[in-house]
């Protein structure tokens, strides 16, 4: 009895050690990758919580604040009409995201599901616009906006984000993945194209809509260049312009800038948390037999 047990036990230990080593290695890699991604945010948070007596540029750098404080966040609200900028950002982002979801999915539906002359050419032209950097388009876009009297207006801020080639591409691919028979079934029942789009197709592309919403929101929320160009009136400033103003107004007090940046990131995180449940696959489960 005894020898058999001792013969077996070391093998099990070897297996356990190898297994533990494997798990440790896996977690070490995961922690390293997570640190790379979370690092800048954590550093920003650390800077925002450092008191005025601390040297934020000391060497070697000190990650944890000596005397953690939330005063910098309060100072942001005193230094700026932060709430007003926040409302502006929310307004612009909500309208731009809504427009983008509606217009992109409307534009993508015929490109995915209808037959008409020039369909592929139109799609090709749309896709090719994705290769042009915004900096290239900015000047003619500004010229058009000024000619239309849209400078210093929220409409001018939103229009470049209201319908994007990327959004159309994303939604087209999502519509293409829906079984043709669902649409045909509705067509035979006499449902018109708009209602098919609204009641059959859109509910089935929620994951793509959520993805597009997040991408658009992050893009609009963090957009600095276009608001800087089109918006002179401080009453219409969005958060990135406001945070930038912090840097100028206080001789680049990075604690304040960091606190402003942290506050402006919170809605992005909230949007992601809200929409992530739609990313879960399986929205089409049961639609058709696979």
């Amino acid at each position, binding site marked *: 009895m005894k020898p058999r047990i001792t013969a077996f036990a070391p093998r099990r230990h070897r297996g356990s050690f190898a297994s533990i080593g494997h798990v440790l290695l896996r977690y070490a890699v995961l922690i390293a990758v997570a640190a790379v991604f979370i690092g800048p945010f954590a550093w920003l948070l650390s800077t925002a919580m450092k008191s005025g007596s601390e040297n934020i540029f000391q060497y070697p750098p000190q990650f944890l604040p000596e005397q953690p404080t939330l005063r910098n966040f309060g100072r942001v609200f005193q230094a700026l009409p932060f709430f007003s900028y926040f409302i502006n950002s929310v307004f612009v982002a909500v309208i731009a995201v809504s427009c983008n979801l509606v217009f992109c999915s409307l534009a993508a539906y015929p490109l995915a599901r209808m037959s008409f002359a020039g369909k592929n050419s139109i799609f090709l032209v749309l896709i090719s616009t994705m290769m042009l950097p915004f900096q290239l388009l900015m000047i003619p876009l500004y010229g058009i906006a000024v000619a239309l009297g849209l400078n210093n207006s929220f409409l001018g801020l939103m229009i470049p984000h209201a319908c994007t080639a990327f959004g159309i591409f994303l939604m087209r691919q999502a519509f293409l993945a829906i*079984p043709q*028979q*669902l649409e045909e*079934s*509705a*067509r*035979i029942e006499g*449902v018109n194209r708009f209602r098919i789009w609204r009641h059959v197709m859109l509910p089935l592309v929620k994951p793509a809509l959520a993805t597009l919403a997040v991408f658009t929101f992050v893009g609009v929320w963090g957009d600095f260049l276009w608001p800087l160009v089109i918006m002179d009136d401080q009453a219409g400033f969005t958060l990135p312009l406001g945070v930038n103003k912090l840097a100028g107004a206080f001789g680049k007090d990075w604690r304040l800038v960091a606190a402003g940046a942290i506050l402006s990131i919170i809605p992005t995180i909230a949007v992601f948390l809200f929409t992530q449940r739609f990313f879960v696959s399986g929205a089409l489960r049961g*639609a058709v*037999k696979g």
Partner: protein
Amino acid sequence: MTSIALKGLKKKYGSKHAVRATDLEIASGEFIVFVGPSGCGKSTLLRMISGLEEVTDGRILFDQVDVTARPASKRGVAMVFQAYALYPHMTAAQNLSFGLRMTGHSAEEIARRVERAVKILRLDDYLNRKPAQLSGGQCQRVAIGRALVQQPRVFLFDEPLSNLDAELRGSMRVEIAALHRELDNTMVYVTHDQLEAMTLADRIVVLNDGRIEQVGTPLEIYHEPKNIFVAEFMGAPRMNILPGIVVEDGGLFLLLDSNQKIPLAGGPGAVDVGDRVSVGVRPEHVASSRASALEMRVDFVEQTGAMTHYFGRIGGHEFRMASSEERQCRPGERICVGFAAERLHYFDAQGQRIGAEARR
């Protein structure tokens, strides 16, 4: 009830003919089944009738009225798809009523129609479930119910049972047959399953390579196949076909390339010495017979319980025998097989039936 007429109906995809000039009359209230191998054009034909597929040439008439240019929604058809095509985000009840809600029917009318479909198809227990929570058979019943509430002139079924297991397929087949008896609507049904075709159809349309090979009642198709394709396609195991030359040897015989002879006594009388013909005989009409000189080498034996299937060769040609008796020989053995001369089907060198008219 609605009659359907197809006049020279064609469908081409580029240079490929999916459906060649097709003429067909479907009587009012008839249950007609399109059957054929994959890619024969049966689903394309059904989709052209539904209006989901554009017609390259020809006309479709419903009750003598040309509907070729009408969209699917204006033809009064309802279709049941192979993959159910239920809206996954809606419950069974919402799936049933969706089309009616979207086309402005009153709540009372919707409730009345849905209630009728629920009663006929016994859907009560899962009205509030979504498709993902239903079994394949339940999904297909909801899909049939969705067609039913439309109160269509014509029901179209595109391989509706192909995704179901064998047992469920059998019970759904009975339900669809019962539904046809109850509604008496014109029904067009596409399948590649000959058992479904034989058991459901008033008439079967056998298609191959985009053209109709034969139209007839199930028993006409079985007993008098118009050509070798139909003869081989309908029936399982498929019909044995033995080609040879007609010779005289104290009577007419078919001389096979293995030098074995099959007596043609009782044949159609339309064959002469020297003609190249093929004879066909169904496996279930073949029996082992010590009196016969026709020898079959058995390669494989398949026991199905009720029947035993023997697969082998006579000369260079595949040969099959189906017997209700249990295993009579083993693979590798040779057995003598025979069949009654009146069970033989005769086909000319082009594969067309000989003497079909004479035998009627």
